[in-house]
C-alpha cells in the first residue's frame, strides 16, 4: 500500500520542528530565570512553536510526538493564561520534554519508540494539579444548511501558513463510492492526490450518517475535506477529481480578516476535550472561521519583514568561489590592460566599472552567507545550565551582540572553539558557590559572551568572573613541558605567559573532569581560529577572571589553492590556474626535459610546455637538501639541462613513457612531501650522482593562463587548501608575481602567486614554442609518412626453385596463368596471346642475375605491371614470368641491399623465413627494353 505522505513533507516538517526547538530554547531559559517578569511575547513564542510541532505531528500521524507536544502545549497554555506559575518542576518537565522531542525528530520514523512516559507523567501531574484535561484545538466551523454547524479540527498555524502562501481554502466533499471507488481510487489514493495539488488541512468521514450494518454498503458515505490550494475553485475541483458542485471556496476575505492579530487577542477558549463533531449535513455553503486564532499573529507580523527565500548553502558556496575566481581574473585583466588604458578611448572607465561591479558582486554574495553569531551563542545557556547543575555551581550567562553577523562558514567553525572555551569557563574558571563566598564574590558566577565590530573585524569576547589564570602555574608547567626556555621566560610579561595556554600540548586543568575532558587544549582553539583568518588572545587576572578574545574577519574571500614550496618558502597557487601536477623522476629528467631556443621545456603528451623554476623567477636562492646531512644547501647548477645525458632528446622521447601526471583535483592530497627513505650511508651518498637521487625528482605544477600552459618547477607540493585572500598593501602592489597574501594554519603569512604575473616575470614567450611545436609536428608527419611508405602490400612469388620475389601489389595490373605451350617465340623475344594481342614476356633472368624458371613446367604465371601513360593506366605492356604465386602479404620491412644487383631490384628482406627480393616491375620492363622512360 502506498504511503500517504511524501518523504519530503516529512523531512520539511522535521527541519522546521528543529528550527522551532532551537529558537525557543533561549525562551525557555528566560522563562526559568524570568519569574514574574516573564514577557507574554516569550511565552507566546514558545507556545506557538510547540503548537506548530504538534499540528504537523498530528497530520503526519506521529503519535508520540503529537502526544508529548500536545501535553507541553497544554501546560504552556496554562502558563500563558496566568493559571500556572513557572517553577523548577515545570521547567524540568519542559526541558526534559524538549530533549525527547529532539530525540524523536532525530529519527522521526522511529519516533514512537522513544520513551516519553516519564515526561508525559510529569506534564500530566502538573495538568492534573490544575484540574485541566489536555486538549486544545482551533476550530473552523462550516455553516450548514438549517443552521447546524460542523467543526473542523483545524490547526490555526496551518491556516495562517496556507493563507500566507496565497492559498485559497476549500470545503470539499468526496463520496466513497461515487468519487473514490468508482474512479478506481483508494481512500488513501484520494488523499495522496489531494496532497499533491495542495494542502489537506483536515479530513473526516462522519460515521453518524450510517445507520448500521444492514444497509451500510448501499449508503454512499462522504469524506469531507478542508483543503488549501493556490488553484481557483473550478481547477481545484478538477484537481481533486470531484464534481464542481462538491467543492466550494471559503470566504477568504472574511477568513483573512478574522486571522488578524487584533481579533486574536485573548479569545482562546478553555481547551475543550475531544468530542465527536456534530453531524454535518451536506452543504455547499462556505465554511467560515468562527473562533479567532491567536497564532495567526505571528504570520501576520512576519509578513511585514523582508521576503526571504531558502537557498542551498552549497549553491552559495559555489557562487562565492566563482566570485573569488572572477576577482582574480579581474585583477589579471586590469594588469594586462593597464598600460593600454591611454590608447583605447573609454577603456579606463570600462575597467573602472568592471572593477567596481566585480567587487560589489563579491561582496553581495558574501552578504548572502552572513549569519548572526546568535545561532552559536544561543546554544550555550543550555549547556551552562546543564553543566552547572552537574558541577553544583551557579552560573549565569549573558549574551551581547547576538545579532552581529559573520560568514556562515565562520559561524559554523566557531562552534567547536567557543564550546571549548565556554566549557572551560564553567568547569575550571568559575568557582563553587562556597569558594566564591569565601572570596567575597557573588556566589553565582558570570559568563559573558559579547560580539561586536571593531576595525573591520568581529571581536568575540568571552569573559568570566572566575578564579583567573595564575601565570606562575602556567610558567612552571610551560617550563616543565619545554614549551619555553628559562632564558626566554625571564623577559616574558604575565600576559605573554598566560597566553602560553594556547601552545600545543598545554592544558591547565589540574583535575580531569568528565565535562572538559583531558587536555583537549586551547591550542585547538587557536589553530581553529587562525584557520579562519582570526586570532585569539587571553587576558586574565588572578582571582578576578579571564577574558578570551577572538578576532575574526567578517567575510572570507576563500579560494582553493595549491600550496607549494621552494627553498623552504611556501607559496599558494590558486587552484583555478592549476591544470595538473607532473612528477618527473630524477633518472628521467634528462629525457623529459629539453631545450628550445635556450629555454627549458617539458614535453607532456603532444605539448611542449615552457618550464620555469619558481626559485629563479622569484629570485630566491635555490637550495636542496644535502643527502648526507639533511641540511639545506645552495644549489649552484643553473640549468635543468645540466642533468641531461648526451643522447638526442627528441629521438629518445618517442618511445619514452609519459611523465606521471597527477590530476589536479580540488581538495585531494597531491603528492605530498616525499616520505624519507632510509638515508644511504654518507659515503655512498656522495658517490651517488644527484642525478639519480630521489631528491632531484622534479615536481612540476602545470599552470594555465588563458590558452597557454606552462610548468613551474617547485621543490615541494603540499596540500590543496582553502585560503583566505588578503589584498597586498600599497608597498608591494607592484610585485607582479603575486595576487595577494594569506595566513596559513600555523600563523605564517605566505604569498599567493599570480600565474599571469609569473609569465611576465619569467619573460615566457609562447609564440617561439608554438613555432617549435609546429616544426615538430611536421617532422612527425614526415616520419609517419616514411613509416607508411615502408608498409607495402606485396605479391610473393617464386621464380626458380628456392628463389623468392615480392612485387608491390599496387604496381600490378593483372596476374595471369599461362600454359607454357602457348608461349611463342619471335626472335629472342617471347610472346603470349593476351586478349587478341601478342604480349611480350620478360624472364627474370633476362634482367637480373637469377636462375631461370624451370623449363619443364606446364603452367607458369605472368605478372602484368601497371604502367601509367599521361596519368592514366595504359593497356598491358608486358608480362613478367614467374613459376608460382605464394601469397599476398601486407608487410612492413626495412629493405636491405640485396646481394644481387640489377635494374628492378629494390632490396631484400626476410619474408616468412625466406630471403625475398623486392622487385620494381616498371624498372624491370625498362631494363628489358620494353618500356621507354619511366612514367610510373
Amino acid at each position, binding site marked *: 500500500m502506498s504511503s500517504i505522505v511524501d518523504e519530503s513533507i516529512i523531512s520539511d516538517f522535521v527541519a522546521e520542528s528543529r528550527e522551532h526547538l532551537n529558537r525557543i530554547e533561549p525562551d525557555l531559559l528566560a522563562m526559568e530565570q524570568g519569574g514574574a517578569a516573564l514577557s507574554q511575547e516569550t511565552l507566546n513564542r514558545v507556545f506557538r512553536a510547540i503548537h506548530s510541532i504538534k499540528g504537523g505531528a498530528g497530520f503526519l500521524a506521529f503519535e508520540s510526538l503529537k502526544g508529548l507536544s500536545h501535553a507541553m502545549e497544554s501546560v504552556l497554555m496554562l502558563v500563558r493564561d496566568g493559571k500556572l506559575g513557572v517553577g523548577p518542576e515545570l521547567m524540568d518537565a519542559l526541558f526534559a520534554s524538549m530533549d525527547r522531542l529532539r530525540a524523536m525528530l532525530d529519527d522521526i520514523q522511529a519516533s514512537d519508540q522513544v520513551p516519553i512516559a516519564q515526561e508525559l507523567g510529569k506534564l500530566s501531574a502538573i495538568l492534573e494539579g490544575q484540574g485541566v484535561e489536555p486538549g486544545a484545538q482551533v476550530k473552523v466551523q462550516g455553516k450548514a444548511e438549517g443552521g447546524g454547524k460542523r467543526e473542523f479540527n483545524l490547526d490555526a498555524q496551518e491556516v495562517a501558513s496556507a493563507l500566507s502562501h496565497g492559498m485559497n481554502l476549500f470545503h470539499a466533499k468526496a463520496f466513497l463510492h461515487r468519487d473514490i471507488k468508482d474512479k478506481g481510487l483508494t481512500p488513501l489514493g484520494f488523499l495522496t492526490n489531494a496532497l499533491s495539488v495542495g494542502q489537506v488541512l483536515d479530513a473526516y468521514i462522519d460515521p453518524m450518517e450510517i445507520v448500521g450494518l444492514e444497509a451500510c454498503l448501499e449508503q454512499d458515505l462522504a469524506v469531507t475535506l478542508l483543503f488549501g490550494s493556490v488553484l481557483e475553485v473550478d481547477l481545484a475541483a478538477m484537481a481533486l477529481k470531484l464534481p464542481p458542485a462538491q467543492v466550494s471556496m471559503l470566504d477568504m476575505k472574511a477568513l483573512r480578516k478574522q486571522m488578524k492579530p487584533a481579533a486574536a487577542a485573548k479569545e482562546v477558549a478553555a481547551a475543550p476535550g475531544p468530542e465527536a463533531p456534530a453531524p454535518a449535513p451536506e452543504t455547499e455553503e462556505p465554511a467560515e472561521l468562527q473562533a479567532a486564532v491567536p497564532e495567526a499573529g505571528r504570520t501576520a507580523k512576519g509578513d511585514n519583514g523582508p521576503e526571504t527565500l531558502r537557498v542551498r548553502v552549497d549553491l552559495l558556496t559555489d557562487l562565492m568561489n566563482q566570485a573569488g575566481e572572477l576577482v582574480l581574473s579581474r585583477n589579471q585583466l586590469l594588469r594586462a590592460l593597464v598600460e593600454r588604458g591611454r590608447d583605447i578611448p573609454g577603456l579606463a572607465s570600462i575597467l573602472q566599472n568592471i572593477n567596481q561591479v566585480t567587487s560589489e558582486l563579491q561582496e553581495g554574495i558574501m552578504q548572502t552567507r552572513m549569519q548572526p553569531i546568535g545561532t552559536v551563542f544561543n546554544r550555550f545557556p543550555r549547556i551552562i545550565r546543564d553543566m552547572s547543575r552537574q558541577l553544583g555551581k551557579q552560573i549565569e550567562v549573558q549574551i551581547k551582540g547576538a545579532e552581529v553577523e559573520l560568514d556562515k562558514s565562520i559561524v559554523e567553525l566557531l562552534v567547536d572553539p567557543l564550546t571549548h572555551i565556554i566549557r572551560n569557563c564553567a568547569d575550571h574558571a568559575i568557582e563553587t558557590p562556597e569558594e566564591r563566598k569565601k572570596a567575597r564574590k557573588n556566589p553565582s558566577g558570570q559568563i559573558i559572551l559579547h560580539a561586536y565590530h571593531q*576595525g573591520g*573585524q568581529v571581536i568575540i569576547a568571552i569573559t568570566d568572573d572566575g578564579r583567573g589564570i595564575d601565570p606562575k602555574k602556567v610558567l612552571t608547567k610551560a617550563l616543565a613541558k619545554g614549551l619555553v626556555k628559562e632564558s626566554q621566560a625571564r623577559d616574558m610579561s604575565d600576559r605573554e605567559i598566560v597566553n602560553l595556554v594556547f601552545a600545543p600540548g598545554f592544558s591547565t586543568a589540574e583535575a580531569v573532569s568528565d565535562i572538559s575532558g583531558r587536555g583537549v587544549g586551547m591550542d585547538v582553539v587557536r589553530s581553529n581560529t*587562525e584557520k579562519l*583568518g*582570526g*586570532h585569539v*588572545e587571553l587576558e586574565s587576572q588572578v582571582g578576578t577572571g579571564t577574558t578570551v578574545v577572538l*578576532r*575574526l*574577519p567578517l567575510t572570507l574571500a576563500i579560494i582553493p589553492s595549491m600550496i607549494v614550496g621552494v627553498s623552504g*618558502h611556501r607559496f599558494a597557487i590558486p587552484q583555478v590556474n592549476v591544470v595538473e601536477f607532473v612528477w618527473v623522476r630524477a633518472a628521467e629528467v634528462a629525457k623529459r626535459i629539453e631545450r628550445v631556443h635556450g629555454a627549458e621545456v617539458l614535453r607532456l603528451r603532444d605539448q611542449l610546455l615552457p618550464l620555469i623554476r619558481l626559485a629563479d623567477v*622569484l*629570485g*630566491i636562492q635555490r637550495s636542496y637538501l644535502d643527502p648526507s646531512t639533511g641540511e639545506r644547501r645552495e644549489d649552484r647548477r643553473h640549468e635543468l639541462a645540466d642533468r641531461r645525458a648526451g643522447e638526442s632528446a627528441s629521438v629518445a622521447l618517442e618511445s619514452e613513457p609519459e611523465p606521471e601526471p597527477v590530476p589536479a583535483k580540488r581538495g585531494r592530497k597531491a603528492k605530498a612531501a616525499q616520505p624519507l627513505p632510509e638515508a644511504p650511508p654518507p659515503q655512498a651518498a656522495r658517490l651517488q650522482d644527484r642525478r639519480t637521487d630521489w631528491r632531484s625528482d622534479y615536481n612540476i605544477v602545470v599552470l594555465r593562463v588563458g590558452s597557454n600552459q606552462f610548468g613551474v618547477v617547485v621543490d615541494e607540493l603540499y596540500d590543496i587548501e582553502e585560503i583566505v585572500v*588578503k589584498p597586498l*598593501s*600599497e*608597498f*608591494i602592489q*607592484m*610585485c*607582479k*608575481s*603575486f595576487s595577494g*597574501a594569506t*595566513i596559513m594554519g600555523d*600563523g*605564517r*603569512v*605566505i*604569498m599567493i602567486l599570480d600565474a599571469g604575473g609569473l609569465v611576465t*616575470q619569467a619573460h615566457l614567450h609562447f609564440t617561439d614554442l608554438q613555432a617549435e611545436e609546429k616544426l615538430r609536428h611536421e617532422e612527425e608527419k614526415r616520419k609517419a609518412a616514411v613509416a607508411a611508405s615502408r608498409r607495402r602490400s606485396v605479391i610473393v612469388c617464386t621464380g626458380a626453385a628456392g628463389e623468392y620475389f615480392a612485387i608491390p601489389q599496387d604496381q600490378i595490373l593483372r596476374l595471369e596463368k599461362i600454359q607454357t605451350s602457348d608461349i611463342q617465340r619471335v626472335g629472342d623475344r617471347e610472346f603470349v596471346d593476351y586478349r587478341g594481342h601478342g604480349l611480350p614476356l620478360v624472364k627474370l633472368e633476362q634482367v637480373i642475375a637469377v636462375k631461370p624458371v624451370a623449363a619443364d613446367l606446364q603452367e607458369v604465371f605472368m605478372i602484368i605491371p601497371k604502367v601509367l601513360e599521361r596519368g592514366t593506366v595504359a593497356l598491358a605492356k608486358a608480362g613478367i614470368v614467374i613459376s608460382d604465386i605464394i601469397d599476398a602479404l601486407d608487410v612492413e620491412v626495412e629493405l636491405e641491399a640485396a646481394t644481387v644487383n640489377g635494374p628492378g631490384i629494390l632490396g631484400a628482406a626476410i619474408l616468412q623465413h625466406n630471403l625475398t627480393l623486392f622487385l620494381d616491375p616498371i624498372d624491370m620492363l625498362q631494363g628489358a627494353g620494353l618500356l621507354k622512360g619511366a612514367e610510373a
Partner: protein
Amino acid sequence: MSQFATFRLGDRVFGLDIMMIREINRILDITPVPHARDHIRGLINLRGQIVTILDLAVRLGLPSREVGEDSHNIILKTTVELAALHADGTAKAFSTSSDLVGFLVDAIGDVVEADDAAIEPPSANVSEAESQFLSGVIKTDAGLLVLLDIKEVLSSG
C-alpha cells in the same frame, strides 16, 4: 608637549610621535616578498591582519638589519585611525598609510617628552640620503634624538 617613542638602528637613536604608533611587537616571523623593493622586509601576521614591515635601516640608506634579541616591529596607525584621533582632538594631523605598515628596528628605548618648540631642523652633519627622511632633531639629556618624516619614509619615491 609631545611624547616620542625612541628606537635604535645601529648606534643611531630615532624618535617617533607615540600618537602614530599602533603597537610595538616582536612578531619577527617575517615573510619576505620577492621582487619587492629593497626596504620592504616582508609581511607579518598581526592577529589575522597582514602588516607590511619595512626595513627602516635600508630605507634610510643604512645596511640591512639582522633580526636580533632586541629587534622589534613598530606598527603604525593607519591614516584612517589617525584621522579619527585628529577629529577627536587627541592627535595632531599625521599622515601614514591607509594600509597597515610597520618598521623593523634594532631596539626600543624610552619614551621622551619634548616641547614642540624644542624641535630643531635637522643638522647638516647627516648624509644627503638620510636627510630626506628627517623632520627634525631634539636635544635630550641622553643625546640627539632624530625625528623621522614618516610621510617621506612611506612615500614610494
